[in-house]
């Protein structure tokens, strides 16, 4: 059944909020046949992800999604059948009132943050009575049954396998980024937050025996990288060499191209939520920079994910992985574990492929959302 959806996205920092909601909106339209308005308060952030978007337009249709500027003050709008507040953003008050006043009140969902912690499945799908008489439902993405699953477009894994099995496709893509890869090179992508200990991570690569090409999209890491390179401000297109390490600064790319970048690489450094999930679909080893929180609450979430991810991993590798990921997230030097991990990338790649297959056994998030809505309307 086709329903109208309003998805609200408040861009707080970085691109995760808008990245996730843009994917979801497209999937709801293209795969689930829904009518979707995506309300974004910062269209300039959206335009970075979707180059064909015009940040100056209040409304535009892209890939079947009506992308709307979430402006202040709010202009009265008829609410949709289904309303999603992404990442616990606050809806306009007038919109909330209007939801309750519909002949058939809107079905209201809070699309929560992703976590591997056990409590998530206990809270997933629970109602939250609101002062206006409506019930808001908390919808939690997750890695296991009992959660809302993960965003995964139809055919994504097939496209990934086809790309990874086509050397020419890989080379063509990388050439488009100004990179001519060599067969013996280790290819690493690095999309992270600030990393004060970056030197301790890159020196072993520069001083190692194997050529390494480091692909770094424009972002928060560049000042730390520039300092290590002894360079001025880094920009897309710049490249530097240090011993065995070649560093390329990449432009901000579209979501499909970011996927291809992950598919190309032997190891992907990712951050936050959206790129973290994409790296798991890439079935390649990853290094996760979790979003830091007060009182180091993020470390519990990091540990919860690692507890699941490392279940059938060799004990020594699992310990090294935990050590490396914690050091990366704490801004510390990695020690010997980093070199150990780099020496076991083939085993980690096999593990990543098994993990991806395990995740793919879950119904994807957009399908689960539609099922959830169908059961309550």
């Amino acid at each position, binding site marked *: 059944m086709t329903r109208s959806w309003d998805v609200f996205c408040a861009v*707080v920092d970085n691109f995760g909020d808008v990245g996730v909601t843009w994917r979801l909106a497209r999937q709801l339209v293209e795969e689930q046949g829904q009518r979707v308005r995506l309300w974004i308060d910062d269209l300039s952030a959206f335009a970075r992800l979707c180059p064909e978007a015009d940040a100056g337009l209040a409304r535009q249709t892209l890939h079947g999604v009506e992308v709307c500027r979430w402006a202040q003050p709010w202009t009265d709008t008829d609410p949709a059948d289904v309303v999603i507040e992404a990442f616990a953003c606050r809806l306009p008050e007038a919109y909330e009132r209007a939801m309750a006043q519909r002949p058939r009140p809107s079905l209201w969902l809070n699309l929560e*943050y992703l976590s591997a912690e056990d*409590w998530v499945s*206990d809270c997933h799908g*629970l109602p*939250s009575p609101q002062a206006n008489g409506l019930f808001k439902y*908390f919808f939690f993405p997750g890695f296991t049954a009992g959660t809302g699953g993960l965003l995964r477009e139809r055919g994504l894994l097939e496209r990934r396998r086809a790309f990874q099995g086509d050397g020419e496709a890989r080379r063509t893509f990388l050439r488009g980024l100004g990179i001519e890869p060599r067969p013996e090179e280790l290819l690493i992508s690095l999309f992270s937050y600030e990393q004060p200990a970056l030197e301790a991570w890159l020196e072993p690569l520069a001083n190692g025996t194997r050529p390494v090409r480091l692909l770094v999209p424009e972002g928060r890491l560049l000042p730390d990288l520039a300092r290590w390179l002894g360079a001025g401000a880094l920009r897309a297109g710049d490249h530097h060499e240090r011993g065995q390490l070649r560093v390329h600064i990449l432009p901000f790319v579209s979501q499909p191209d970011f996927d291809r970048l992950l598919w190309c690489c032997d190891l992907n450094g990712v951050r936050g*939520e959206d790129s973290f999930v994409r790296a798991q679909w890439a079935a390649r080893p990853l290094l996760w920079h979790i979003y830091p*929180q007060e009182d180091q609450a993020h470390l519990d979430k990091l540990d919860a994910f690692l507890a699941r991810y490392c279940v059938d991993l060799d004990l020594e590798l699992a310990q090294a992985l935990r050590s490396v990921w914690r050091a990366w997230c704490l801004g510390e030097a990695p020690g010997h574990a980093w070199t150990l991990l780099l020496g076991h990338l083939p085993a980690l790649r096999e593990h990543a492929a098994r993990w991806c297959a395990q995740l793919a056994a879950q119904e994807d998030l957009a399908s689960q959302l539609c099922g959830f809505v169908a059961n309550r309307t």
Partner: protein
Amino acid sequence: MKTAQEFRAGQVANINGQPWVIQKAEFNKSGRNAAVVKMKLKNLLTGAGTETVFKADDKLEPIILERKEVTYSYFADPLYVFMDSEFNQYEIEKSDLEGVMAFIEDGMTDVCEAVFYNDRVISVELPTTIVRQIAYTEPAVRGDTSGKVMKTARLNNGAELQVSAFCEIGDFIEIDTRTGEYKARVKA
């Protein structure tokens, strides 16, 4: 108004015109320094139970309830009977004493607080610290006086908790009713 994270078990909130007693509240940090609170609720008018979740900073209206000092009298299955200083008796179901059942025992003299809604007792709160006697525990380990080694002890009402290894059958112990934990061995 109070935020969801400020509510504790036993307290009551007005949710859409209905009084709901919070039987259990679990706080969890979600993302970006936000948090959620999962609550197990019981409707004081209908008795219906439900589970909900709130953002930690969602505002809820607390219902201030009447409170009265009472002492425990007896158990008349399935109800527990408490009495105030004027000998008025108040009955309460076991399910409404879920948080304090471990501390209820025949002959207890602790001055408790009964919480009322519409003249009906909905919960009973015990003092923060109570004294109970150990009915059974394994013999004390000679030489350990540090109090750091713990062992299981059973109280007269059958409830069990961990106590210092030097405690013996018949000893009186202080218990923190907020956590259910042993605090110290005391003289009777």
